[in-house]
Each structure stands twice: as structure tokens, then as C-alpha cells.
């Protein structure tokens, strides 16, 4: 993509990396959390549900600042993790963490809805045929919620690509390190003559978002057809 400048290209590549890691690493947690919220009854469930959804309703700057407090070099978690060689502050991993946390509610919601649509009597049937809980999940529940997982992952990826407020608050806007697509667009708009670069990145954003959406629609339809058998 020669029409993108080095800084623009860097921002696109970084955003894809950040969003990809954020989605991939949070997916197992998202599935587990969706299962807990869809199937378990326990005291404090509404509290857990609220905590999961908090990033959706809090101002992103607040989430970013809380992340900074917890995972910054001075933060209680950040210091501990840094001693284990894992650093978030002003690092692309921090951008991925912020994106993952901001996207988590959307992911959990989509997966949870698909779990609630699974007929528990089918899982019961699988159990009568000798399947353990793990096997019931792997052979019945998981295949049936794949469209939901896919939808959740795509939503989370799109949200992660576009995350701005929490990211810039938590890990700032360092080109090549934490300057994702939206941060780059913002930065280009701050300097005279940056509009052309900003516009090119806007086009890239639209193309990536549309590609993600269309491919997920296509895959979801194929999976749904498999499940419905039509």
C-alpha cells in the first residue's frame, strides 16, 4: 500500500495487531463469562453482570484512567506484572488490554444470547447417551453457539479497532507503539496539512470494518445453515 505513508501504515498494522490479540485472548474468557451468566444461578450474579457491562456505560476516559491506576508502572497490578516481565504502560500490549476490556461486554452479550437459544433438552439428551459435561459442551453446545461466538468476536474486533478514549488515556499516543488507527487520525487532525493522511486512514477504517462485517455475515450464515440443516 504505497499510497499510505510510513506512519499511517504503522498505525494500520498496529491496530490490526492490537485488535487481533485483544479479540483472540479475550475470546475464551468471553465464552466462559457468557456461560456463567447464561446458565449459572448464584448470589451476586447481577453484580458480576454489571461489572462486565461497566466499560460499555462508563466514559471511556474513566475506564482508561482506572486501567492506568491498576496496570500503570505504579499500579498495584502493573508493578506485580512488570516483575514477571509483562509491561502494559505506554506499550502496545496496554492498547490491546484497553481494547479487550472495552470490547468485552459486546462479545459476552452476543455469545450469551446464542447460549440462551440452545435447547437445554438437547444437552440433557447428550448426557443420557453417556457424554460428560465437557463432551456435552464440545459436541452439542459449542457447535450450536458457533455463530454467536463468531458474531461476538467480530463485534469485539470492530470495537477494538475503533477504541480511542480508554486507549489514549491509558497508553497515550506514541507512534509505532500505541498509536492505533483512531489515535493516528486524531493526531493527523491536530497538525496542519494532516487532513489528507487522516482521510486515507478513514478510508482504511471503513474498508476493514466492512470486510470484517461481510465476512462474518457470510460465515455466520454458513454456520447457521449447518445448524438448521436447510
Amino acid at each position, binding site marked *: 500500500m504505497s499510497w499510505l505513508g510510513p506512519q499511517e501504515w504503522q498505525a494500520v498494522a498496529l491496530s490490526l495487531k492490537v485488535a487481533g490479540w485483544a479479540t483472540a485472548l479475550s475470546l475464551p474468557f468471553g465464552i466462559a463469562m457468557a456461560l456463567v451468566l447464561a446458565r449459572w444461578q448464584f448470589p451476586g450474579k447481577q453484580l458480576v453482570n454489571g461489572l462486565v457491562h461497566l466499560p460499555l456505560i462508563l466514559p471511556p476516559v474513566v475506564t482508561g484512567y482506572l486501567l492506568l491506576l491498576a496496570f500503570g508502572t505504579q499500579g498495584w497490578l502493573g508493578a506485580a506484572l512488570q516483575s514477571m516481565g509483562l509491561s502494559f504502560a505506554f506499550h502496545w500490549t496496554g492498547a490491546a488490554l484497553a481494547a479487550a476490556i472495552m470490547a468485552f461486554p459486546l462479545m459476552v452479550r452476543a455469545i450469551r444470547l446464542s447460549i440462551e437459544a440452545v435447547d437445554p433438552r*438437547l444437552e*440433557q*439428551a*447428550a448426557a443420557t*447417551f*453417556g457424554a460428560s459435561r465437557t463432551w456435552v459442551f464440545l459436541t452439542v453446545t459449542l457447535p450450536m453457539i458457533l455463530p454467536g461466538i463468531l458474531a461476538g468476536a467480530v463485534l469485539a474486533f470492530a470495537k477494538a479497532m475503533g477504541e480511542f478514549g480508554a486507549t489514549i488515556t491509558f497508553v497515550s499516543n506514541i507512534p509505532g507503539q500505541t498509536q492505533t488507527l483512531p489515535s493516528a487520525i486524531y493526531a493527523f487532525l491536530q497538525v496542519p496539512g494532516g487532513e489528507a493522511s487522516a482521510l486515507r486512514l478513514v478510508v482504511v477504517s471503513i474498508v476493514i470494518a466492512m470486510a470484517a462485517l461481510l465476512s462474518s455475515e457470510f460465515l455466520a450464515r454458513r454456520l447457521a445453515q449447518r445448524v438448521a440443516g436447510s
Partner: protein
Amino acid sequence: MTLSVRLRHNLPGFILDAAFEAPPGLTVLFGRSGSGKTTVINAVAGLLRPQAGRIVAGGRVLFDSTQGICLPPRQRRLGYIFQEGRLFPHLTVRQNLAYGRWFAPRDAAREDMGRVVEMLGIGHLLTRRPAQLSGGEKARVAIGRALLAAPQLILADEPLAALDEPRKAEILPYFERLRDAVNVPILYVSHSAAEVARLATTVVVLEEGRVTHQGAAAELLSDPRISPTGVREVGAVLEARIVTHHTDGLTELIAGTAAFFIPRIDRAPGTSVRIRIAAHDVMLARDRPTGLSALNIVEGRVEQLRSGTGPGTIVSLDTPAGRILARVTRRSAEALGLAEGVRCHAIVKSVAIAPQDVGAADSLPS
């Protein structure tokens, strides 16, 4: 292999307190809806934990409240045929059939997939998914899946209730084949006397959570005081053999020494069948009637007259064909002077015996 069940469980409105034995063959758990049948079968499957009792299948204790044993469903070695089929929608028919055997112990006696597929006539469906199957086809696949799970106990919870009459008639023969193909107990929940008459080796009648009767099917169905689903379901079950098919669309049977003509059934001469003759389809006459359209007239001796609270009475006749029941009004019974020992003729219209009343004979002693 025998299933032995004893359990107690509080249900809304009544207490389930049932004990029965299901020998190999097909045991119908017979009762009205709300009599506790489904609770019993769920307790046997392990989907419900009864408050007290003991369930033993072929010497294996599945549940024992005093010893604190309650095996989870997956350890009970079941083949469950659900009412709505419950086929896995994301798997093909072949994968559905194979599902149970993935989890069966390595050393379990396995049915041959090809043989089961052939027995159920589902060879052409193997690559389809459940959504592409008709109701009857789904029911057949559900039977196959249960059979292929190498079960030590087969459970069926009103497997035909969701099907219309022609579909039921289509599936019943497959349950007969299932019954004759396996030597594990089959516990079959039903509220249909026709299904009991065709399938049952043993019947357990459940009323308001209690076992009121258990025994052979023919005996139970012929007693109006027992039949829990009402007097309209009372009928006799005769063992017969196909003699020949006539060109006018009738099939000639011989039951005992009496000939019966019924609408043509598609089975080879020489085949043994069971026919169910509903009591309300039988007329009685003291003298042998002449100039009558009905083809089946059997002479017999009145064994018993049984009246309930209604205007009707059930007359049971001992005939060369076996016991036949007739439901007539008490007024007619008096007018004819019917009493124990009196000889009279039972008249059965051929067309009253519908194909679904004709089943393959049970290969097991009943």
C-alpha cells in the same frame, strides 16, 4: 436383564409411590397424563432424583437412597427415545446415530450400524440433517440412535405422541422390531391403549402416582375397571396368523380355530399377528344372525359381565378365537338375557379393525 424400580417422590397434588419390575421385552408404563409416568421415567434416566427408593437395572444399582447412590445419566448406559426425537440439529443422521456409541464402553456389545440402518429403513437419509427429515423419519432415527448406544436399558417417553395417526401407524412396526431385536428391558411411557395392545410384553398401570395393576397386556386391556384411559379404550387382543390375501382387498386370518376377515395388511401369509378388537366395535346376538353384512361372527360363551357407573356393560366371551369383549348397553344385556354361561355370537365388522390395530406378534412369552 430386568429393571426393578421402587420410588417415592412428592409431586404437586399427589405422592408418587410406585414399584414395579420390567422384564426383558417391552414394558408399557400406562396411565393418563399427570399420573406420574414421566416422573418415573425421568427418575430411571437420572434426570430427576427421587426422594426415596431404589432402581436396579440388570443387577446394577442406578439409584439407592439409603446407600446414597445416584448415578448421573451418563453412567446409566441408556438408550433414550425422546418424545420430540431430540436429534442433534447440527449433526447428520449418520453422526446422530453414532453419537451414543462414541461414549459406550469399549467392551460393550455393539449393534451393527448397517443392520440397524437396514432394520429402520433409513439408509437413504444418512447424509441429511434432522431439519430435512419428516416427523416419522426423525422418530426412526431416534430409535436407531438409542439402539446403537449399546444400552442396558431403553427408555421411550411417549415417542409417538407428537405424530399424526398415519405417522403412528408407520412407526409402530419399528418399535415391534426394536422390541424383538434387543434383549434389554424397554420402558415405554404411553397413554394409548392401541400402543399397549400392539407393543407391550408387560403393562404397568399408573394412577395418581400409584401402580394399580401390572401384568400381561391382553389381560389388562380387557378389564374395564383397570383401563385408566376410559371405557372407550377397552378391547381384546387376539393372537392370529395370516392365512391368505383375497383379491377383494381382504386378508384372512385364523385366530384359534375361528377365521377373521380384515382389511388387507401387507404381511406374508403365515405371519403371526396380534389384532386388537375394541369392545365398542363388537355386537352380540343370541342366535346366529343371517343376512348381515358383517363378515366376522364367532360363537362363544359369556364368561363375565362387568358394569361400571354408566349405561354400558362389558361382556367378555370365551370363543375359539380367544377372549373377545363387547361393550353393549345394560338394557340390551338384559333383553338378551345375557348371564354367565349363556352362549351367544360376537359380530365384528371387518372394517372396524384398522391397520394400526394389527401388530406383529411378540416373540417373547407374554
